[in-house]
């Protein structure tokens, strides 16, 4: 019984979110279904980014490059070769993974600000290639006419399609973060030096994580093209790399669902605010400043410290303190 309780405690939040996501299209107007679809896709993008940021402890400021590679892979395959969307998704993951493998091999040699700057530089490199290569990528015109296949053409149907893919991807990501590999990432974040002395090749592990993060960013990008009916080089640009950073910071990088919740808040506000004013960046800037100053650790960080649902570790530590009746060690 206690076990069932534990499962409920652990999974009530994602399950509630999923149920809400399934019901939503039936209760909100058409426009908002679009917004929620965007939330899902950018949420997956942010969750993939958080493998590097929240779990590995490095800030990637060029994650849009892999998102863009995924988006363009699907766009090109669908427009030029008329491939079915379902076949494009895994291919996009692979191409984004290859891009991450090549560029990441340089980035993982660095840490901190140097890591951030190199990821950003490579991101801009990808952006300019896409931007300049008119014959292949369409340059700044982008690619138009990326339509979802007929069976998911309607807004609601494509929304459910995205929901299914994003849910599967999030489950896979969750498993990875809870696996020994996921804990190795936390170990590297906490103390990469010690991780070498327990016999692990830290650089290699960081590289693998970088590739996985790139692959899932590519998957999110692949969902974007058919959703938006087009792709543009801006998807690879550094401003676009900023979105997952903001989302992870708002939602909380130290909780698996933090980036997804961040995407809900950020994307929703974006759609809402742009209804009144064109100064969305001003609003998002103010939000970020407030989050950083008033609730470091994001939304989940503040919930944790306020104790609405105390974290697993603290709860167990409390229980432990209670049943040993105070520690024997002074």
């Amino acid at each position, binding site marked *: 019984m206690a076990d069932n309780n534990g499962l409920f405690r652990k999974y009530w939040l994602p399950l509630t979110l999923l149920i809400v996501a399934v019901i939503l299209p039936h209760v909100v107007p058409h426009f908002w279904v679009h917004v929620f679809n965007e939330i899902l896709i950018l949420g997956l993008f942010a969750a993939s980014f958080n493998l590097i940021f929240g779990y590995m402890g490095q800030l990637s400021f060029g994650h849009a490059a892999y998102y863009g590679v995924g988006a363009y892979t699907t766009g090109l395959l669908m427009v030029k070769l008329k491939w079915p969307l379902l076949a494009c998704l895994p291919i996009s993951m692979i191409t984004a993974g290859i891009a991450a493998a090549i560029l990441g091999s340089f980035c993982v040699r660095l840490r901190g600000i140097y890591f951030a700057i190199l990821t950003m530089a490579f991101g801009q490199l990808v952006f300019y290639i896409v931007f300049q290569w008119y014959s292949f990528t369409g340059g700044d015109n982008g690619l138009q006419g990326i339509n979802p296949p007929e069976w998911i053409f309607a807004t609601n149907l494509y929304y459910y399609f995205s929901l299914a893919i994003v849910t599967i991807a999030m489950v896979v990501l969750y498993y990875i973060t809870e696996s*020994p590999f996921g804990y*190795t990432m936390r170990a590297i974040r906490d*103390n990469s030096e*010690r991780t*070498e002395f*327990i016999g692990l090749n830290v650089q290699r592990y960081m590289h693998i994580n970088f590739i996985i993060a790139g692959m899932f960013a590519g998957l999110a990008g692949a969902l974007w093209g058919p959703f938006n009916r087009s792709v543009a080089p801006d998807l690879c640009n550094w401003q676009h790399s900023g979105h997952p950073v903001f989302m992870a910071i708002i939602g909380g990088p130290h909780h698996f669902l933090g980036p997804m919740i961040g995407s809900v808040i950020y994307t929703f506000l974006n759609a809402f605010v742009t209804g009144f004013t064109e100064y969305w960046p001003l609003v998002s800037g103010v939000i970020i400043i407030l989050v950083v100053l008033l609730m470091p650790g994001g939304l989940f960080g503040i919930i944790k410290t306020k104790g609405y649902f105390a974290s697993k570790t603290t709860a167990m530590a409390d229980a432990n303190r209670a049943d040993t009746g105070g520690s024997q060690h002074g």
Partner: protein
Amino acid sequence: MDNDHILKVEHLSKAFFKYQVLTDVNYTLAKGQIAAIIGPNGAGKSTFFNLVTGYHHVTGGHVFFREEEITNWPRHKIARIGITRAFQVSNIYPKLTTYENVRQSILAQKKKTLNFFTPAARLAKEETLELLNLTGLQSHKHTEAGILSQGDKKKLELALALASKPDLLLLDEPTAGMSSEETHETMELVKRLNEEIGLSILFTEHDISVIFGYAKKLSVLHQGILVAEGTPEEVRRNKEAQQCYLGDELC
């Protein structure tokens, strides 16, 4: 059969820019031995450990583990081949629980860290608990390691090193920050590991009673030079060692 050393160091030198920290050190540790390197602060004890474990780049000389030269190998390869260490200033995973700290090191030793889909919580349960019990950390297993007391952090430091199932264990001031009771418990554990599973151990220490109580062989470092070596009795009588380090009260 011809050689029963586990660690052999020849003409080991280290210079940081123009500062010579270690000069031409020759040292041999026999298999299954428990030995200590002593010397005042700044003598080069930690540097010696850092060179053997790949933390610093060796600028002169050779390090052999058994018959294999491991000079300037990458750190993780040296750990894999069987040399692990506990650090002087505890070097743990502060945001993970004590249990997760130890499990991480065990999973690394078992080469399970490239497993992507089995929840880590299901793996290595028994080994982790066993090691926590052995090092006396069982009552803190769900505590975040960063908020442990200094003494408990040092125990965790030892647990992380032991989880790698080393053949040679290097302990850099293993009992610094511990109460005298904890010091005794920890050193008894180290002694037992040495006697029962034949683990070779090399440690540094400032506590005279620990040094003379547990080491079978002592080496005295002074200003980067190995000035004396022998059994505790021999070193106690050695004039040079007395001048460098031990002071008058022991003579």
